């Protein structure tokens, strides 16, 4: 117990509980709301909590990346798609009973998988961490590993990102003048 900062440990615990709570609450909001835009906001909250957890796992760099990539890029991109297509969940067309039954089945499957994995994680014989570590896990160590041990994967993922950008452009431009639209599009001369 630190004499100069009494209850400092409890403050750390409160921050940890906040991160765990944000992650769980955000994930539940993202899955359970009917309006998709609230689901996207829930995903943002979930990723903020996850960034806090990464900080507690000795990786402030990944916490920053999580906020930058997920909250800053992925969620904003999903919001753009929400603005272009109106994806709000319609009231169930199927009968009410089938809807509830499918919900129960989905809950059972999710609880089964999650419970089994949690049981395995808690009961399994995990290996102890070696005393001498290969590196210190700092940003400099990550950079060195990226350009030496993992350089092939590094190049491959840059190629994957390039192909993904080109593919997204081709796909989004492709169907512009598809015939048989429900609502007529303006002629191309006006664009």
């Amino acid at each position, binding site marked *: 117990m630190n004499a100069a900062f009494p209850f400092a440990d409890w403050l750390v615990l409160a921050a940890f509980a906040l991160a765990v709570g944000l992650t769980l609450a955000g994930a539940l909001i993202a899955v359970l709301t009917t309006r998709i835009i609230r689901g996207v906001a829930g995903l943002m909250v979930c990723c903020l909590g996850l960034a806090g957890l990464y900080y507690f796992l000795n990786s402030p760099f990944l916490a920053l990346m999580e906020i930058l990539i997920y909250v800053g890029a992925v969620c904003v991109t*999903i919001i753009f798609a929400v603005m272009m297509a109106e994806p709000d969940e319609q009231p169930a067309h199927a009968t009410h009973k089938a809807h509830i039954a499918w919900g129960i089945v989905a809950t059972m499957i999710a609880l089964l998988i999650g419970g089994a994995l949690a049981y395995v994680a808690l009961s399994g014989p995990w290996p102890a961490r070696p005393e001498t570590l290969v590196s210190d896990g700092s940003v400099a160590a990550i950079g060195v590993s990226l350009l030496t041990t993992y350089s092939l994967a590094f190049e491959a*993922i840059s190629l994957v990102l390039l192909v993904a950008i080109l593919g997204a452009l081709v796909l989004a431009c492709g169907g512009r003048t598809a015939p048989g639209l429900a609502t007529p599009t303006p002629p191309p001369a006006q664009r």
Partner: protein
Amino acid sequence: MKLLLVHQQPAIYLVLAALLLAIGIYGLLRRRTLIGMLISGEIIFAAASLNLMAANRFFAPDPAAGQIFVLFIMGLAAAEVAIALSIIIAVYRNYRSITPEELTELKG
């Protein structure tokens, strides 16, 4: 004083990752729009990343390896979101709907 050290134990991270996976699978089964299913998929990615980071922090001899793995997961997830959203936009342009139940024909 055991409670004060809970953030230095692997158990809570692993259980939280399992819970996130369960939530993501529930959403994937339950959502009736493509964007909702995409969000659930992102939560499953988050569960995998958290699990890997916990294993990296508590069991692995090289602390940099897990962080690089999670960085690659983030990059692949970003690429996946870009592709999936452009497919969703193309589908919406053709069908005026992105409910999976109505997308019943493959012929463009």
